[in-house]
């Protein structure tokens, strides 16, 4: 494909940008970083709760994306999902080593995801994938929703959720399992609609 110009970068799809990146297009590298840095850093800092470590994780995620751009398989998900999955995996690995656990109960993102309430400045941001995920999450009973958010967005294990919520381990496991199962059903239903 042709080179990405600074002017055209904003109009190019994520997949085309990644393709140009795989071809070694330096403009595509810059455009890709600017397009995804807020999301990758946002996820990393949500998971690890430390800005410095989150920056390191987001940067390592970009380096891996650049390195593996040529083997990206769109059948496995969108570019954004792929990039976020790489970031999440790095953050989880980092958490596994550090295991310092900031309790997210006062965290704005945690509050929004669990309550379903959106702060006015965030409500204007429309992303179809996020809208669908948020709608599916909102259908879960509160206890399951909290467990799913703690595990997926904050990297908490069932044992840690049990401790945070002061519930038996078996209860934490079943909340997470049932929550994920219900999300599977609801996401499929929302996709069909």
């Amino acid at each position, binding site marked *: 494909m042709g080179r990405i110009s600074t002017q055209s970068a904003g109009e190019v799809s994520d997949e085309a940008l990644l393709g140009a990146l795989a071809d070694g297009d330096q403009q595509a590298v810059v455009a890709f970083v600017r397009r995804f840095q807020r999301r990758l850093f*946002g*996820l990393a800092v949500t998971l690890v709760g430390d800005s410095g470590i989150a920056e390191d994780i987001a940067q390592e995620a970009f380096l891996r994306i650049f390195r593996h751009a040529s083997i990206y398989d769109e059948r496995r998900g969108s570019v*954004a*999902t792929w990039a976020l999955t790489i970031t999440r995996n790095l953050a989880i690995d980092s958490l596994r080593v550090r295991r310092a656990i900031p309790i997210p109960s006062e965290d704005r993102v945690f509050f929004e995801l669990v309550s379903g309430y959106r702060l006015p400045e965030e409500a204007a941001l429309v992303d179809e994938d996020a809208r669908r995920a948020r709608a599916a999450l909102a259908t879960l009973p509160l206890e399951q929703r909290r467990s799913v958010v703690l*595990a997926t967005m904050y990297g908490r294990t069932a044992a840690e959720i049990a401790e945070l919520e002061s519930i038996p381990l078996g209860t934490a496991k079943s909340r997470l399992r049932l929550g994920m199962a219900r999300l599977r059903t609801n996401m499929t239903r929302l996709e069909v609609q």
Partner: protein
Amino acid sequence: MSTDQIDPKACAAIREDLSEFALRLVSGRRRAEMLEHLQTCSKCSAQLEEDVLVADALLALAPEIDPPLGFESRLAKRLGERSVSLRRRRIRLAAMAAAAAVAVLFGFGIGVIATGHTSGGPASQSANLTEARLVSGGRAIGYVYLASGSPAWMFMSVGDANWSGTVWCEVTSTSGNVATVGRFDLIQGHGAWGVPLKDSSSHVRSASLVDAAGVTLATARLTS
């Protein structure tokens, strides 16, 4: 073993932890046990696929937050450093490939050239290469190459592992026998290694990397 032969109680126990597994929240011995089960149970594997899809879809909920000032310039610096390191690695791998080609042409021991070990054996001039991704937790961390011939050779190239140190290579034959064929060191997640095989390459079903505790770290499926 087919799924039909698996004890339903084993599946129920695995499914207790499957959501955590999909989120990479299971580690150590439990992860190894689950991996072992998942390799032979298509129902639990299918369930895992679905959990992974849900987990990935939820990533869309990640908040957008500005990284600290200077993020791009620090990334550019790391990118520059990585390019140099990657070039060095590519040169090393290219040297290995060239060495292998020379060995194929002249019948020298590839093991001597590629790894520094003296366990050499002549490579076949009609080597036929099979390639498979080395996968750890659903992520490709390298490649395994199987060259047919007499003897057959196996090459392993790891470029993106999360561990360092000594790893052991186990080969599972089509008849289900497992044999440790050697070991090599990973340095900062990178390493490459080669070994001649006693059996024909067509007898190799999969190759795995195993740590000192016997936990399977990554597997490459070479035949179905």
